[in-house]
């Protein structure tokens, strides 16, 4: 997969807003068929030009963008939009506490503001209100940064947030970070990650000034030490869907081969971000999240980066480690580590394999995670009935190929439970593993399931593989909950919908 990531260039920081993923990468967001057909369709460009006749609500890039920037320490968020955008903070704001606690960071109350744009603002523009909100945030909370997420309304009416940021820059101490993440601009919600990192790259990554020592020879010694440290340091780029357990496991593995892992950028302080350039290699755990950031960091600091696979399951964890090891010429140490870890893990997995062998599984969610998760359960002897991806782009070309399952059913769509439930009712898997917001529907259909990711469970690395298998076996120990709710609640889909082929719902489109 490195080949596709290597073919991209990163030179977008001159503009206020990043290009959408449709423009920059191209992605398929509506498809139903086999993996083989999809791979062909993506190569020819046809798969990217499909759409739906009947569509259901998926994600919004604003949510994803805000998920990144709101995690930083000591920031205040301003949502420049009517009241609805990010109103889900009232339900999720408290998660900041648990997430920070799991990382051993002190509790910090999450503060956000809505500019509360109304009809009058649609006509007159909302900049004055935004100015007031910024000054209030500065006065009341003295944050290190005030991050402004721009919604559809200011995007359409043309509020010039960047000029305002420039105007206020020298009047307040907080850094002002505009993030352009208007939902209507992209159907590919992962565009939100680029929007967030665009703001981070432009406004928050300022390397600290060098400190000069007054002790004779002090500078030389410090530089030599820094140089060595940096030459061994690996930045691991975390994502909103990983847990602290995942970060500990991946850090453990890199430490074991003599490297110095640092986990960034979620939940980081601005000081952590300032030092982001001090690494020999930037390593992604999910291309969908951070190629834009890693690419631009290479332009800025010359740091090489690795965008390969997601370290879930044995094969993909091995591969992730080997790629990093190759960069540092640590192959020998790494092979020893892999051999030791895999032999211990395989022994531990043995009882789980006996339970899971022959059972059918379906996996839905983000492209990289579903393919690696599916591969892992396949390796435990389960039968793959199908996968469903929010979107598919060229980052997963190699993973798709490595799966070596051209006939495997793949559905592409963000959300779209009507199509997914139609497939599941026909496929009748024993176990479903899916993205947040999908599992409830699957429970109502009566299929045992568990979440594809979670902030309190370890999924990645070798320990994560064990936890995943353990979770699957646990779920199957009692399936009464889904049996009971499916018998006593109803889904809104008509009976004859289940007889139809969901492929019929996909249509050719004229543009993205």
């Amino acid at each position, binding site marked *: 997969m490195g080949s596709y990531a290597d073919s991209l260039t990163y030179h977008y920081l001159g503009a206020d807003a990043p290009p959408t993923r449709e423009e920059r990468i191209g992605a398929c967001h509506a498809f139903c068929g086999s993996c083989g057909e999809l791979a062909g369709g993506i190569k020819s460009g046809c798969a990217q030009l499909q759409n739906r006749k009947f569509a259901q*609500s*998926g*994600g919004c890039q604003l949510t994803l963008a805000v998920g990144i920037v709101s995690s930083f320490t000591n920031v205040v968020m301003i949502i420049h939009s009517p009241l*609805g955008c990010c109103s*889900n903070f009232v339900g999720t704001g408290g998660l900041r506490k648990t997430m920070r606690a799991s990382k051993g960071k002190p509790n910090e109350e999450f503060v956000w503001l809505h500019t509360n744009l109304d009809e009058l603002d649609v006509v007159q523009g909302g900049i004055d209100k935004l100015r007031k909100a910024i000054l209030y945030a500065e006065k009341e909370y003295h944050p290190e940064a005030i991050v402004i997420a721009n919604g*559809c*309304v200011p995007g*359409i009416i043309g509020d010039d947030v960047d000029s305002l940021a420039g105007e206020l820059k020298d009047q307040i101490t907080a850094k002002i970070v505009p993030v352009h993440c208007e*939902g209507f601009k992209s159907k590919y919600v992962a565009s939100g990650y680029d929007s967030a990192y665009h703001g981070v790259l432009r406004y928050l990554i300022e390397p600290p000034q060098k400190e000069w020592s007054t002790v004779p020879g002090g500078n030389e010694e410090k530089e030599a030490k820094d140089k060595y440290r940096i030459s061994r340091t690996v930045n691991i780029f975390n994502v909103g869907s990983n847990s602290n357990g995942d970060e500990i496991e991946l850090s453990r593995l890199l430490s074991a081969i003599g490297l110095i892992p640092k986990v960034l950028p979620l939940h980081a302080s601005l000081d952590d971000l300032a030092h982001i350039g001090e690494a020999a290699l930037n390593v992604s755990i999910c291309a969908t999240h951070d190629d834009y950031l890693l690419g631009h960091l290479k332009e800025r600091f010359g740091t090489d980066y690795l965008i390969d696979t997601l370290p879930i399951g044995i094969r993909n964890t091995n591969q992730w480690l080997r790629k990093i090891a190759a960069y540092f010429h640590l192959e020998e140490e790494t092979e020893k580590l892999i051999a030791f870890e895999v032999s211990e893990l395989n022994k531990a997995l043995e009882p789980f394999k006996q339970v899971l062998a022959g059972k059918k599984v379906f996996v839905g969610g983000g492209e990289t995670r579903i393919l690696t998760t599916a591969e892992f359960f396949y390796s435990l002897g389960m039968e793959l009935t199908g996968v469903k991806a929010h979107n598919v782009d060229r980052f997963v070309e190699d993973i798709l190929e490595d799966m070596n399952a051209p006939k495997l059913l793949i559905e592409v769509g963000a959300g779209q439970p009507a199509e997914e439930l139609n497939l599941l009712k026909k496929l009748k898997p024993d176990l479903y593993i899916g993205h947040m917001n999908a599992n409830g529907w699957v429970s109502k259909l009566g299929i045992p399931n568990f979440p594809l990711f979670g902030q309190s469970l370890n999924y990645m690395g070798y320990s994560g593989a064990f936890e995943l298998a353990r979770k699957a076996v646990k779920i199957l120990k009692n399936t009464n909950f889904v049996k009971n709710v499916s018998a006593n609640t109803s889904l809104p889909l008509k009976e004859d919908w289940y007889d139809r082929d969901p492929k019929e719902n996909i249509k050719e489109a004229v543009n993205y």
Partner: protein
Amino acid sequence: MAEFIERAKFTCALGGALTTIAGINRAVPIVHAAGGCAAALSGTYNLAAGYRGTGYCGGTMIPTTNISENNIVFGGEERLEEQIENSLEILDADLYIVITGCQVEIIGDDAVGVARRFKDRNVIGASTPGFLGNTFKGYDAILKALVKDVITPSKVKDARTVNILGTVPGHDVFYRGNLDEIKRLLGTFGVKVNTFFGTGESVADIRGYGEAGLTILLSDQAGAETAKLLTEFHDIPSIKADLPIGPSGTKAFLFQVGEALGIDKEYIEAIIEKEERHYYSYLERIIDIYSDIDFQRYAVVAADSYYAYSLTRFLADDLGWIPFITSINDITEEEEQENYRRKFDSITSETRPKVLFKENAGELLKEVRNSWPYNHNQKYYDAFGPAFVVGSSIERGLAEKLGANFLSVAFPVSNRVVLNKSYAGFRGALTLVEDLISELVSAR
């Protein structure tokens, strides 16, 4: 002009429309907007209304036109028509309600007009862009559409049937339990209660709401426009009442409604006596622990106007707590603030609360601190406390900073799960006492 709000306890009009539709049995929204609006806004009330969930057709199940930049330039009405047609084919519902987001309203799509083309197939439409305002605007937009397009006009009125307005599903986290208790209470008079969202009510029932003789409006901020329209279209008068919580509030409510319906006062008194006896027969259980440990608390109440007065009154008049500050987050007009403030004049505790109107959640801490004499490290200091914060999940931080106990009642409630619980009436107040006092003994 609306101001910016720190940690608003609301979503927008589209979100309000979605949570309202989700409260109606077998009603399905069709959202003409960008792809993410519906699931995200529905998600606000799925989580923060005590984990109410997506319901029948919420969250990612919501059909949406999923318009993008191209439609912003060329218009999205054709796409909406295709989406309605396919939604009717795939989704099973008794009513389909087309609603709109900011993007399509700014470009001038006539979504309600498109919906009208499908009106003989149980489709209605309402304009609900986020910039119209908060949740309540969306609630009224949907109910007004029901009043105009669904409720059948009826010349014959039943004097013993009432419609309830002002209880916003999800925004009142306990809406179903509360409506069920109000139904039970008025049922003791032989009154039939239409609530739109109560247990067992259907779209077919809503069609018959035109036969009601009276509307009871339980909120100053939600439902007033609908009540007016019910008078205009269906000739149903309305009265404004406070959400009844606890013996004092519920007695006042029953007398007020009874009078409006011309029910014999003695009959009402007899029912109240029975209800009150039942209430105190259970309350008696906590008298010992309340008295032995002194469970009287200074109360800080932070809620919307639907709950704020009713909760304060219950804590002060019934439970005997000291109402210290009540902060209301949803009234911005000065005159309305003054009217609302006057309600508190009738509170019977020796101490009356300071009544504040604050939209910004963060300001309450300063207000509490500034409202109590400062500790200058004098030898004898009359400290603030013991205190209890009754608010929303957002006030949890406030309670921690004050060293106070805490219960979330007003939206958002994200720190506990709510199923059939109610805080309304006599029965609901028992549950409220259970939850308040449980906070005080939970460490034992």
